[in-house]
């Protein structure tokens, strides 16, 4: 496990992230780049659990990869994190790391500011592995993580490892998660949010049913 501290390495990570997502976009817009299709959803907060990391290691092992990158892209990595704390909000994990390593790194207080640890002050995170065949885009305000895949077999592998208790489709994302996010609003989830999210990510249902797009 290692935090990204050198600028050139951080820039490399940013380039990798830019090959997977469009940072300027935000949910319910399409945030993934066009090569990615087929989506699964999960609860945002799952990212910060040891169980998530253990399953992620199983997934990486199953697809023959060894390293996982977790990076916060909002608040701004340079303008906020580097300027205030002299470090980038990005960590590279190995499949040899333990879930304790993972949790400790997410809890690490930058400059004795516990509220700025990655698991607290992170509005949008991206996770991916070395071959850039899949990515997670996680938005704290929507309380959702979305996994996008470039290959169908990766989706199936992810599903089999994480299970149906963990992942769900866009319909459940709206009824189970966004309904809570907007619970204080009389009209519930705004219709334009439902429409955009459904239009942009409805292919996730294909994964659950096993049907071809």
């Amino acid at each position, binding site marked *: 496990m290692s935090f990204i501290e050198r600028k050139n390495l951080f820039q490399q990570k940013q380039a990798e992230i830019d090959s997977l997502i469009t940072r300027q976009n935000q949910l319910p817009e399409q945030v993934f780049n066009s090569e990615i299709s087929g989506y699964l959803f999960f609860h945002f907060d799952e990212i910060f659990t040891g169980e998530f990391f253990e399953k992620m290691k199983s997934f990486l092992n199953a697809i023959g990869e060894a390293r996982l990158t977790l990076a916060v892209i909002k608040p701004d990595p340079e303008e906020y994190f580097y300027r205030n704390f002299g470090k980038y909000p990005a960590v590279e994990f190995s499949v040899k790391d333990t879930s304790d390593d993972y949790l400790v790194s997410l809890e690490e207080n930058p400059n004795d500011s516990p*509220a700025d640890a990655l698991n607290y002050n992170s509005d949008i995170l991206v996770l991916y592995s070395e071959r850039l065949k899949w990515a997670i885009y996680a938005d704290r305000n929507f309380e959702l993580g979305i996994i996008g895949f470039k290959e169908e077999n990766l989706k199936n592998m992810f599903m089999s490892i994480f299970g149906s208790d963990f992942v769900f489709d866009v319909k459940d994302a709206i*009824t189970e998660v966004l309904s*809570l996010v907007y619970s204080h609003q009389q009209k519930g989830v705004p219709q334009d949010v439902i429409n955009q999210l459904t239009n942009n990510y409805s292919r996730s249902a294909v994964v659950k049913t096993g049907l071809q797009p």
Partner: protein
Amino acid sequence: MKIFRCAFITLYERDNESDLDFAQARYYNFKHGRFTTVDPLMASADIVNPQTFNRYVYVGNNPVNITDPTGEIWGSKDGTVQWFDTEDAMKAAGFTAYTLLYAFRTGTNQMVALNANANVAVNVASAAAWLSQQVSWGATAQMLASGAAALAGVPVAAAALALGEILDPAGRYRTGQNLPEPVRDFAGTKQSYWEDFLTAMSKSKSNEASPPSANMQGETSPANPDPEDNKPQQSSVKDITTGRSIPNTQTNVAKSDFVKNLQANGYSTSTSKDGSVLILTKGNRRYVVRDKSNQGSPTADFYMNGRLVRKIRITP
């Protein structure tokens, strides 16, 4: 099995915001889980230390007069407690209408019964011992929820939620989430968790120091009522958990009150450099309070031993 029950001759204003059924019953029956009480607006009281019940005189070391523990109804007069077969018998004996509230004292497993109408609190540890032989601790927990709710000035559902977090062994948690070992352990941090929870859920008005007034029917009015708003300031709390989500609570408590209550309860504060994240920590408990940048309401994530166990949706 004997049913531990007390009579309530009180009226209760229904909380229209939460639409909770508890407010409509006139009795609290432990077997049936129904409860009626006044709202004593007692958030300033510390359940841990009944001496802080500034509306009640604590007489914990006094002997308790429980004349007939096989009866079903308690009556109270001059701070004493007696059992009666019927409510009419209680009244005929000159015992006034009263409200009996319950709480658990941290670390002692002693029960405290508070006679709200007579402004007297009675330590009924012996009754608790008797009770523990008669009913399951699960049933006792329901009773405690009601008492704790009244003490904290929050709906019974709020206390039940807090207690359910600890006590409900069945299905409240997501599959695969290794959350508190179930039930029947009122000691230590688990117990103090719900006290904090209830404290945090109290609306600011309920922190007023002077006592509420009570009439002969056991109805209470809020202390120093706001002339522009005589309605008791009652927190509304709903469990809105859906599907696979972690336990979710929605409350009408304002963010500022929520934070203030926790700080008053000994939580230390840490704020992110950009001010977007506020962490309140006390021992192994942590609330992380955030505003939402979209249209969502502010949230408070509650962590126990580093694990997120509940998301509370509070009012801006």
